[in-house]
């Protein structure tokens, strides 16, 4: 067999072609050692197990959570033989592995994002209640989707639900979830609320919802967000960054809309309330009319009484001034040819005068004047 003789560069190219053919993309799990960031951009670390260690290389932009020595992580990427620096594994994405590492990764990321104010209560916005349009981000194949739709259909009507189906676990999940959030935020007729949900699972299954990119996308959403991941006890950073958290997908539906059965019952009560209020207005109005009529009657009665009293007074006054009443007391009226005689000087001896008494008259001749 003839030996192939290559230059160093040709050999490196050949090895890289072989890597590309054999491992176009591969996932490797191991413990992080010698982790360091150079010039704020380049990330170097070793990934090791009991027997072996490989050199890994990436950029800080690929770090989806704070990485530390001792963490068990899964890296996805390609092996590469560098022309100057030898073998390295070029990492395109990271994922923590195992409960302990995941918890530590979440703790570190939470501390970092907390310091930035991403979870502040003052950032929380109220959800539209009930919303008209819902952007739903979950897997159309999931139980979470079925549960959410079942509960929301049983509770409310007239909703426009737009489902953006995404992977909810695995390497591609964070990217798809972020694309969905971006899609809804860029719509001219954006939904009133985004619901991001998935059912329960292991901490690795739920990891996508605690990655930095998803947590930041939720926090930065222009559309209000409701996030429900896993069960009551499960916890994700996306839920902390959301405007509202729900414990389960079903609970998300319960939070979003009222129960139409309660609303229909309330409308039945509103019927009774309307009738009660109308009756009250009529009763109140009748009372006012009764009061007005009673006052009117009293006014009229008083006026009549006053008028009667005046008439009685005036009658007695007239009676008192009636000359006939005076004549009764013994006085008489003396006239001579229709002239009222008030003095004897108006008379002469022999004049005939007319004397009027209260009940009769007499003609008298004057015999003497004094």
């Amino acid at each position, binding site marked *: 067999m003839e030996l192939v003789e290559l230059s160093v560069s040709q050999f490196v190219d050949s090895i890289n072609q072989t890597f590309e053919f054999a491992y176009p993309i591969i996932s490797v799990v191991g413990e992080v050692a010698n982790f360091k960031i150079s010039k704020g951009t380049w990330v170097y670390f070793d990934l090791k197990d009991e027997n072996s260690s490989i050199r890994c290389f990436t950029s800080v932009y690929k770090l989806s959570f704070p990485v530390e020595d001792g963490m068990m992580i899964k890296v996805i990427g390609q092996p590469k033989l560098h022309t100057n620096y030898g073998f390295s594994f070029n990492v395109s994405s990271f994922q923590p592995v195992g409960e302990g590492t995941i918890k530590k990764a979440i703790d570190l990321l939470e501390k970092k994002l907390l310091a930035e104010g991403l979870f502040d209560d003052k950032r929380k916005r109220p959800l539209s209640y*009930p919303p*008209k349009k819902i952007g739903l981000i979950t897997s*159309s194949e999931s139980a979470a989707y079925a549960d959410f*739709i079942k509960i*929301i*259909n049983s509770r*409310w*009507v*007239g*909703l*426009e*639900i*737009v*489902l*953006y*189906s*995404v*992977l909810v676990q695995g390497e591609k999940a964070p990217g*798809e979830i972020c*694309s*969905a959030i971006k*899609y809804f935020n860029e719509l001219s007729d954006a939904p009133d609320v985004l619901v991001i949900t998935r059912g329960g699972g292991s901490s690795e299954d739920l990891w996508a919802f605690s990655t930095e990119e998803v947590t930041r996308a939720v926090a930065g959403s222009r559309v209000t967000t409701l996030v429900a991941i896993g069960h009551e006890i499960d916890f994700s950073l996306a839920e902390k960054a959301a405007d509202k958290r729900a414990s389960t997908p079903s609970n998300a539906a319960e939070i979003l809309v009222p129960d*139409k059965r309660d*609303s*229909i019952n309330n*409308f039945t009560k*509103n*019927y009774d*309330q*309307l*009738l009660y*209020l*109308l009756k009250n*207005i*009529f009763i109140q*109005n009748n009372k006012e009319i009764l009061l007005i009529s009673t006052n009117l009657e009293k006014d009229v009665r008083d006026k009549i009484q006053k008028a009667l009293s005046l008439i009685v007074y005036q009658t007695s006054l007239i009676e008192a001034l009636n000359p006939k009443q005076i004549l009764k007391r013994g006085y008489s009226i003396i006239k001579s040819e229709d002239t009222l005689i008030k003095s004897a000087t108006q008379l002469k001896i022999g004049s005939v005068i007319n004397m009027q008494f209260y009940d009769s008259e007499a003609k008298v001749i004057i015999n003497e004047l004094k």
Partner: protein
Amino acid sequence: MKKNSEVNYKDLKDELDNILVSLQSDSIDVDESLIKYERGREIINKLTDYLKNAENTITKINAK
């Protein structure tokens, strides 16, 4: 199936709430109260019918 646009639930519910408040006002007269009562009944019928018969619409978009 009823379309969402046929009934604006929130507007009608707000109108009903306002009617209930105005019917409790001392200044409302009998004629106005009768008109509001009738409108209130009409809104309740519309909203109840809507809640009993309308449905939700679901459209699906797949991740690219």
